[in-house]
């Protein structure tokens, strides 16, 4: 009985950051390279404490620029590697991420987002949505982006992130925030050793006589070749669209759909309950993957609902994608707080009601 329980994983009470770090060890990472920054330093601290007792390797780099380039080197050598940071540090990694995406290397990066711009605040935010889903660095590329909404998903998405990154040889990002990183919840951790390693015949491991030398590069000086590489990347991104994931809550009869990811989706769940108590048919669509984004599903839903509202902890970023998705079929509103402030379920409900009032005025 006990064994069975262990195998499935015991429920533990953990901080989001620690659950993510523990999941990384259980995902058999070969190495983690990182640099401290609030609100995610627990990840590096946890790994520095645990890895020497267990397996893998952890290095505190001199900067996020260095850590992402260590990731490039180690991923290019065929290792399963990961880094994490928060907004300002992730900005420093953008050059490296562009190189990694171009060289088509798998790796996992967690961004525990804090309020910005600039040094900003250490409070939670979703202000890095654009940076995460639109590329972030230079050139035409995409990260695969997963947005956890619970401590459970902070752990699970480490496995999912590596699975996708390795399947597509593409960097994956867990886009979370300071609140999810810091809060404690019950979590059942993924089973250690259950994420099989993949073959990496392209890796730089030393050239045996039997093959040509392997080269990891993002330099294709002839424009014809560079365009070819771009086509290859775009083809890959097309394939990645099939990995889209989202969660629907009370959508079936919904006349109003909230769209929210991560922490704001948790808030919106409560809003849905409050609204339903008042007889308002509100539902929630939570994108789990932000890239790929559930464009198709939102477009379908636009046929059914009166309006949508994107709820975010930023000045309105994902709302642009929601608007693109619905192709003008229904109005798309936005409710957000910025700079580390979090909207309450009541704030969101109020916004819904004020839209309804306005619409009524217009109809009268």
């Amino acid at each position, binding site marked *: 009985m006990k064994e069975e329980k262990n195998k499935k994983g015991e429920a533990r009470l953990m901080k989001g950051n620690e659950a993510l770090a523990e999941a990384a060890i259980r995902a058999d990472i*070969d*190495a983690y*390279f990182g640099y401290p920054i609030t609100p995610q330093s627990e990840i590096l601290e946890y790994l520095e404490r645990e890895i020497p007792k267990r397996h893998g*390797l952890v*290095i505190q*780099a*001199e*900067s996020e*620029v*260095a*850590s992402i*380039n*260590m*990731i*490039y*080197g*180690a*991923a*290019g*050598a*065929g*290792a399963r*590697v990961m880094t994490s940071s928060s907004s300002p540090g992730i900005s420093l990694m953008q*050059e*490296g991420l562009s*190189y990694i995406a171009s*060289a088509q290397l798998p790796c996992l990066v967690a961004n525990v987002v804090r309020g910005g711009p600039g040094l900003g605040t250490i409070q939670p935010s979703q202000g890095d949505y654009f940076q995460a889903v639109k590329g972030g660095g230079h050139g035409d590329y995409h990260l695969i982006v997963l947005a956890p909404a619970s401590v459970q998903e902070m752990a699970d998405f480490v496995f999912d992130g590596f699975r996708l990154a390795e399947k597509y040889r593409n960097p994956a990002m867990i886009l979370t925030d300071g609140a999810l990183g810091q809060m404690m919840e019950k979590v059942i951790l993924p089973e250690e050793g259950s994420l099989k390693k993949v073959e990496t015949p392209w890796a*730089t*491991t*030393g*050239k*045996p*006589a039997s093959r040509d*030398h*392997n*080269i*990891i*590069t*993002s*330099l294709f000086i002839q424009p014809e070749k560079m365009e070819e590489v771009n086509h290859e990347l775009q083809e890959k991104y097309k394939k990645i669209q099939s990995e889209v994931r989202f969660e629907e809550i009370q959508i079936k009869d919904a006349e109003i759909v909230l769209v929210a990811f991560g922490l704001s989706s948790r808030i919106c769940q409560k809003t849905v309950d409050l609204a339903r108590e008042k007889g308002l048919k509100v539902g929630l669509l939570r994108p789990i993957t932000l890239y790929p984004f559930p464009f198709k599903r939102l477009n379908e839903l636009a046929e059914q609902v009166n309006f949508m509202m994107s709820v975010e902890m930023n000045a309105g970023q994902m709302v642009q994608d929601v608007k693109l998705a619905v192709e003008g079929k229904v109005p798309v509103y936005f409710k957000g707080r910025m700079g580390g402030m979090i909207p309450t379920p009541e704030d969101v409900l109020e916004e819904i009601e004020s839209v309804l009032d306005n619409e009524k005025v217009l109809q009268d």
Partner: protein
Amino acid sequence: MSIERPSNHDFPSEAEGMDLVYCRPETLTDLPFHYCPGCSHSVVHRVLMEVVDELNIQDKTIGVAPVGCSVFAYHYMNVDMQEAAHGRATAVATGIKRVLPDRFVFSYQGDGDLAAIGTAETIHTVNRGENILMVFINNGIYGMTGGQMAPTTLVGQVTTTSPYGRQVEFAGHPIKIADMLTQLPGAYYVTRQAVHNPNGVRKLKKALTKSFQYQKEGKGTCFVEVVSNCPSGWKMTPVETVKYLEEQMFPLYPLGDLKKPDGAK
């Protein structure tokens, strides 16, 4: 980059009644170098691969190319290689070496790459005593981008971004990064060489060979600077660059070992 020509490994051999005394190293590909005639990069590439051949470590060697004229080093060096972002070669090398500690890892960088944009990575790689070989081509100029001032450019030296000569007031002094690195306990062996004459080439070869041996023994970072020329950037003939090296560069960047392991000769 695909130029048809006979393999250099097919040169006349003993079979035709001649002794083979000199040929292209096995670990150098057949591609002709894109470097300007007389450029040190070509010589250093060759010597480095000669050493890999002689130590018989082609299958265990992984190199990291920089951004600079030698960005395509991986076209010529027939070992597994990665091309790093400008300045980040030693962070990339760190990543490789840390997950493949039994391989021989080297980085190869110019002065802009290593001593300007990549200074932090350079210092911290050495400070961690990363067990790698760092090859540093100090030609006092940014070759690839057309001859701009480098951190190592001499005071008064004319470049495209110091058209009146490097002025300390605006550009500071030439940085002697190898000397700085000797201060770090992680640096096991720091040496400064040049390939302006055959004796220099022989000495460089020794330094590189030693460095790989130290790496095998897990001693820490080996740093091999090569005070180099850039005929195009300096706007000189290759022969004139030798004189410039001897008269201008070596007084500031004297050749020889800067840090030797205790007891080594």
